[in-house]
C-alpha cells in the first residue's frame, strides 16, 4: 500500500513538471521578436513562436488595438488537460502603471476553448500581462502501469509576460524587432498612435538622452565599399550605455539607432550620409576649374545631443554627417543634432531645408594649387549617399565574423 502511495506521489510530481509544458498561447495580431543578445539570429529568437506564449521571462509584440485571446497549446506528449480557468489577468503599463483591464476568475473552460482577455491599447505601449491560470491536469494518455488512476493535479502558475504594442509590423533592420530596443522605443514613444508622432517622440528622446561624442568612431564598422552601407554593433552600443547612462556615439550611431527605434515600432526608415567617404567620390570641379577634394563642411551652430548646453554644441567641421531618412518623402529625422533656431529635426525636407540648416560652407583642397578653397553655398556639393534611398544598416548583437 505504501509503495503504491509512493508511486502515486511520484507520478503527481512528474505530472507537475509536465504541466509546465502546457503553454498558454496569446493570440492576436502579433509579430516575432528576437532578444538582441546573440548571433546568428536563429539562436536569438523569442521562442516558441508563433504564437507567443504567456510565460515568465517571455516577451510578445502586438499591433495596436489587437485583441488578446488565450488558448492552450497542446503538443505531443503533453499531459491531458481536463479543464482550465483564468484566476486573474491584468494588462498594466510598465511606463505609467496604468491598468488597462483586469479579469477576475473565469468559469471552467474546456481544453479547446479560448478565452478573450481584451485589446491592447490603440497606441504604442510597453506593458506587462500579469495573471494566473489554473489547469486540471489528468494522467497522461497512457498512464503508467500501477499508477494512481485518480490522480488529478490542480496547478496554478503566476505568469508575467512583457507586451510591446507597436503601430505595425516592425521593419528592417528590426525585423524581427529586438526586445532590448523595444524596451526603449515603446517607453519613449508611449502613447503615440501615428507614424509621425512616434518618430517625433523617438527623435526628441534620443536627442535628450543621447551623448554625441564629438565625431569619433564608435559602434559602426564599414564594409569594403563604405558608401554602400555599414554594420552597427547594437548590443555593444546598448551595453556600454549601462556605464555611461547615455546613448553615446557619433552621427553614425545616432542615425542607426534612431532607425532601429523607429523601425521597431513599425515605420520604415533608412540611413543616409551627406557625402561619400571614398576619396574619388569626394572630388569635384571647383569654380576655378581645378579638381577639388572635399575636406570638410562647416556647419551652422548646432545643439549636439544631449539637448541643452553640452560639450559639442556650436559650429563643427565634419567630413560627412549621417542621418535617418524617410526615403518615401525625402525627409530627414536626426537625433544627434538640433538646429539652434528651429530645434529638433523632425521630418525636415532633405533639400533645401535640412541641407541649408546644416551646411554653412564647404572646404575643399584644390588638387592643383594645394590651397584650401572655401565655398559658402550649401548646394555646391551636396551628395546624399548612397542615392537615392540610403541604406539599411546591418545590425548585429556581436562582432561580424572576419574571414
Amino acid at each position, binding site marked *: 500500500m505504501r509503495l503504491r502511495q509512493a508511486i502515486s506521489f511520484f507520478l503527481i510530481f512528474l505530472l507537475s513538471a509536465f504541466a509546465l509544458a502546457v503553454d498558454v498561447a496569446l493570440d492576436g495580431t502579433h509579430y516575432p521578436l528576437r532578444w538582441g543578445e546573440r548571433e546568428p539570429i536563429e539562436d536569438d529568437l523569442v521562442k516558441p513562436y508563433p504564437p507567443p506564449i504567456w510565460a515568465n521571462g517571455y516577451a510578445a509584440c502586438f499591433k495596436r488595438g489587437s485583441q488578446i485571446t488565450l488558448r492552450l497549446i497542446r503538443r505531443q506528449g503533453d499531459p491531458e488537460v481536463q479543464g482550465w480557468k483564468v484566476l486573474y489577468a491584468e494588462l498594466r503599463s510598465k511606463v505609467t502603471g496604468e491598468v488597462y483591464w483586469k479579469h477576475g476568475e473565469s468559469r471552467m473552460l474546456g481544453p479547446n476553448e479560448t478565452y478573450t482577455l481584451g485589446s491592447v491599447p490603440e497606441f504604442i505601449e510597453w506593458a506587462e500581462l500579469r495573471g494566473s491560470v489554473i489547469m486540471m491536469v489528468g494522467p497522461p494518455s497512457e498512464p503508467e502501469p500501477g499508477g494512481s488512476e485518480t490522480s488529478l493535479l490542480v496547478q496554478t502558475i503566476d505568469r508575467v509576460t512583457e507586451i510591446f504594442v507597436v503601430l505595425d509590423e516592425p521593419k528592417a533592420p528590426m525585423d524581427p524587432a529586438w526586445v532590448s530596443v523595444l524596451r526603449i522605443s515603446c517607453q519613449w514613444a508611449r502613447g503615440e498612435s501615428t507614424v509621425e508622432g512616434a518618430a517625433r517622440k523617438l527623435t526628441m528622446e534620443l536627442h535628450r538622452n543621447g551623448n554625441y561624442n564629438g565625431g569619433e568612431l564608435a559602434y559602426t*564598422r564599414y564594409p569594403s565599399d563604405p558608401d554602400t552601407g555599414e554594420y552597427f554593433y547594437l548590443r555593444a552600443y546598448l551595453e556600454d550605455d549601462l556605464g555611461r547612462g547615455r546613448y553615446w556615439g557619433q552621427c553614425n550611431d545616432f542615425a542607426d539607432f534612431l532607425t532601429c527605434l523607429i523601425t521597431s515600432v513599425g515605420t520604415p526608415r533608412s540611413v543616409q550620409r551627406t557625402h561619400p567617404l571614398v576619396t574619388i567620390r569626394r572630388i569635384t570641379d571647383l569654380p576655378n576649374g581645378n579638381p577639388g577634394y572635399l575636406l570638410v563642411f562647416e556647419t551652422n551652430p548646432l545643439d549636439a545631443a544631449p539637448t541643452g548646453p553640452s560639450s559639442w554644441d556650436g559650429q563643427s567641421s565634419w*567630413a560627412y554627417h549621417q542621418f535617418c531618412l524617410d526615403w518615401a518623402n525625402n525627409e530627414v529625422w536626426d537625433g544627434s543634432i538640433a538646429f539652434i533656431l528651429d530645434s529638433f529635426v523632425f521630418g525636415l525636407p532633405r533639400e533645401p531645408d535640412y541641407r541649408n540648416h546644416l551646411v554653412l560652407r564647404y572646404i575643399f583642397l584644390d588638387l592643383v594649387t594645394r590651397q584650401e578653397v572655401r565655398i559658402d553655398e550649401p548646394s555646391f556639393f551636396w551628395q546624399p549617399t548612397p542615392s537615392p534611398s540610403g541604406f539599411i544598416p546591418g545590425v548585429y548583437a556581436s562582432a561580424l565574423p572576419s574571414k
Partner: protein
Amino acid sequence: MRLILTLGIGVLLVISLMEGQVLQEGYIGKKEIPGLGTVLIWGRKERPPYPSVELLKPQHTVIVDGHFLLRRGSQRTMGLRPEDLEQLIYDLEEIPGWITAPPPESMHKKIYGLQGVHTIINLDDFGYVGLKPVPGGMRCRILRIWRDLTQLSEYNQGRRNSQELKAIEIEVRVYDRPAKEHGETLSEYRWQSQAGMRMKEGTLSGFPLGEESWYLEPTTLFFRINRCVVIVRAPDLWLSEALAWGIEYRIQQHPKMLGMAQKPVTLLVANKPIGQGKVISLAGVTVAPLSTLEPAQVALETKRTKTEWTVTARRNGQWVKVKAFSWEMETDKGKVKLERPVFPYKGELVVPLRQVAEALGISVQQKGQTIALLPK
C-alpha cells in the same frame, strides 16, 4: 502529499525563474560617503571573485559589484582574465576627486533592473573587432567610467542635473596581435570618423606616448602600444594625457607582456639595486615610484583623501611635493614643470626620477640601462 506537491512545484518554479535571469546575478556593494550619501560601489576587499573564465559560457553575462562582464568567445580564448584587464586601468577610487559611480539616471535601471554598473569587461570578442577585419581576430576590452565627486554630491543634493555631470572614461582594448594590424591607427580613425579631420597627431604635451598617439580636442586622447589601444576621455586634455601616461606604465608593467619589450632598468642606491621592475623608461624618461628614493635618506609624507593625493619628499632640508596627475611639482625653490606627469600605481605615486631626485639634492648618473642615485 501536499508537502511533496508544494516542494515539487516550488523547485520547478525556482528553476523556471532562474532561466533568463542571468543579468540579475551578482552583488553590488554599498558604501556611505560623507556628503555624498550611499553610493553603489565596489570595495576591493569585499568584492566577490569573478567566476572562473572557464565556467563562463559564450554570451554569458554576469555582474560582480558593478562590473558587467561578458564573455563572447566560443572555444578560443586569449587567456586574459577580468583581473588581467583591471590591472591595466585605475582602481575605483584611485583618481582623486573622481569616483566610479553608476549613471545617476539611466533607463537601463528600469529596463533591465541593472544598477551600479561602472565597468564593462568584454572577454574574447572575435571577428571584425578592430577598425579593419582581420581573419581570426580577437579582442578583450575594459571600459571604466568615473564621475566628478563634487558634482555627484551636488546632484544628490538636487543642485545639479545629471546631464552636467563630468566624467572620465578610460577604455583599454587588448588585441590578439599588434593593434596596428586591426587598423588601430590615426589614419584609419581619420577617415572613419565624422570629425576625423580634426584629430591631431601626437599629444598635447608633445611627448611621444606609445607607438602612436593622437587626440581630438577638447577631451579625447588615443594611443597604441603593441597589442593595446587606450582611449582616455577627461574634461580636459592635460588630465587625459596624465591619465594616459599612467596607463602606459601599467601596460609595460603587466605580467602578461602586453606592452613593448624593454631592456630592464637597474636602479642603484648605495650600490644596491632598488625597485626592480618598477623603474622603467617612458619614451626616454625614467619613471619610478617615490619609494625607490627612500634608501637615499628621503622621507616621504603621504596625504591621501577622496579629493587629493599628494606626497611630500624631504631630504636634508630640501623638499618636493608631487600630486597625482599633476604636470608640475612644488619644491623648496619653486614650481617645476615635469617631463612626465605624476600618476599612481599600487598605492604609490610614480614620478620622473631624475627631476625629483635632483630637486632633492641627489645626483643621477646613467650608464646604459643602469641608473645610480648618488646623494650629494
